[in-house]
């Protein structure tokens, strides 16, 4: 397995998204492992600001030279912002996966439970190692 970077300040979903919660707002992106598996990213389809998203359900699409992949919302809430940089520079996802955020969510009730259901960095690393 190729080496990949692990951001220790975020939590991870089984479907390889990361979520960082700061000042009550959840920011979502995809992991370094995921961007490497995707290969070169060429396009992202982002949700509309104001649209509701549900934990574990598709919220965006990332398109690479290989395929189109779903990006799920790790937590439920309402999209309050999308990253305009990714529209013109989707390759930032390959270059800096933990800076290249897709969208920000104002979480609804239940955030604590949803976060608890996600992987810690160490658990995610163990999960990825198990993917062989």
């Amino acid at each position: 397995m190729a080496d990949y970077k692990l951001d220790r300040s975020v939590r991870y979903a089984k479907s390889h998204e990361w979520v960082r919660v700061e000042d009550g707002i959840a920011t979502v992106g995809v992991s370094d492992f995921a961007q490497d598996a995707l290969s070169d990213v060429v396009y992202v389809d982002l949700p509309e600001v104001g649209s509701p998203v549900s934990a574990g359900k598709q919220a965006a699409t990332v398109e690479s030279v290989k395929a189109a992949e779903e990006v799920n919302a790790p937590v439920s809430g309402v999209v309050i912002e999308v990253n305009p940089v990714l529209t013109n520079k989707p390759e930032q996802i390959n270059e800096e996966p933990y800076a290249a955020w897709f969208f920000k969510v104002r979480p609804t009730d239940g955030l604590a439970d949803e976060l608890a259901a996600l992987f810690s960095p160490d658990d995610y690393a163990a999960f990825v190692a198990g993917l062989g």
Partner: protein
Amino acid sequence: MLQRTPLYATHVASGGRMVEFAGHQLPVQYPSGPTAEHQAVRAAAGLFDIDHMGQFELAGPDAERCLMHLQVWDVTQMAEGDAHYSLLCYADGTVVDDIFLYKLPGRWLIVVNAANRAKDWAWIESHLAGHAVTLTDRSDELAMLALQGPQAATILQKLTRQPLAQIPQRTALTLDVGGVPTIAGRTGYTGEDGFELYVPAEQVVELWQLLLDSGQTEGLLACGLAARDSLRFEAGMPLYGHELSPQINPLEARLGWTISWQLPFIGRDALLKTRLEKPQRLLVGLEMVDKAVPREQYAVAADGQIVGQVTSGMKSPTLGKFLAMAYVPARYSALGTVLEVIVRDQPKQAVVVKRPFYRRNAL
């Protein structure tokens, strides 16, 4: 059973991401990534392991006469050393395979797609009766590399005393490349200048390393299948299984230019009929007006109806545009026609544009 090319260990050691392609394990990309590899070929040079391609040799007094029957290009116009693209067609005019044909001293080399190697062999063999020819499969003993890009000739020239200026486009010459006996064809599948190299399988690892070392100053990159696909796509070249198949005829694929109508090739009667009646559907180039990645098998719609299908599509690394090749009814094939590509249930506007999308020296 997956086959490994002689370069398998070399690919793995240099970080190649191995995938299955037409029964072979080949690198889809190296650590630099498909986009960087693609750009290296357009700006400098790239080196590809294409040993999965099959090579058949046809020799004997009837070889030329036999080829007039087997394939569509006019072999009577080929001099020794000439190389040309051609097609094998079924009697109904659809395509068995697209091939490259080399007229070498005393023999012909037929280069076929990996996925079609067994099928082509059986098909060719079944049409040899009554001809004084011998057909030999050289695929295992010959390895094949492609060195492509504007710096390809500079890189290869450093390794051989023979002047490469003696090899015009679509011709081949036998060279000594750093001690490796090589048939070098000035041909390729990228839209750039370059060479396809046929070498003894046991010496291909040595040649690969010689070329990589030679090309270091020019920015030569080892390239994988993903870059090979995006390069041929921009250059408007068909890929069997996508733009060509046993359900598609050459006129639909706009490959009528390969056909020597005066010769008695298999499929001629059916294709003459198609030519007279005009093909019902045609291969077109599409450029997305709405931003979206058009991919293989996505539906193409016109006037609210599904009318066709994408055969290849991607974001063009050179042009930065979202482009596709697709089959559509002939009435929707005119340049400027507005169509829709259905992307995840959403109709996205596209317009018919000229192919090839990319021509060297034309940017």
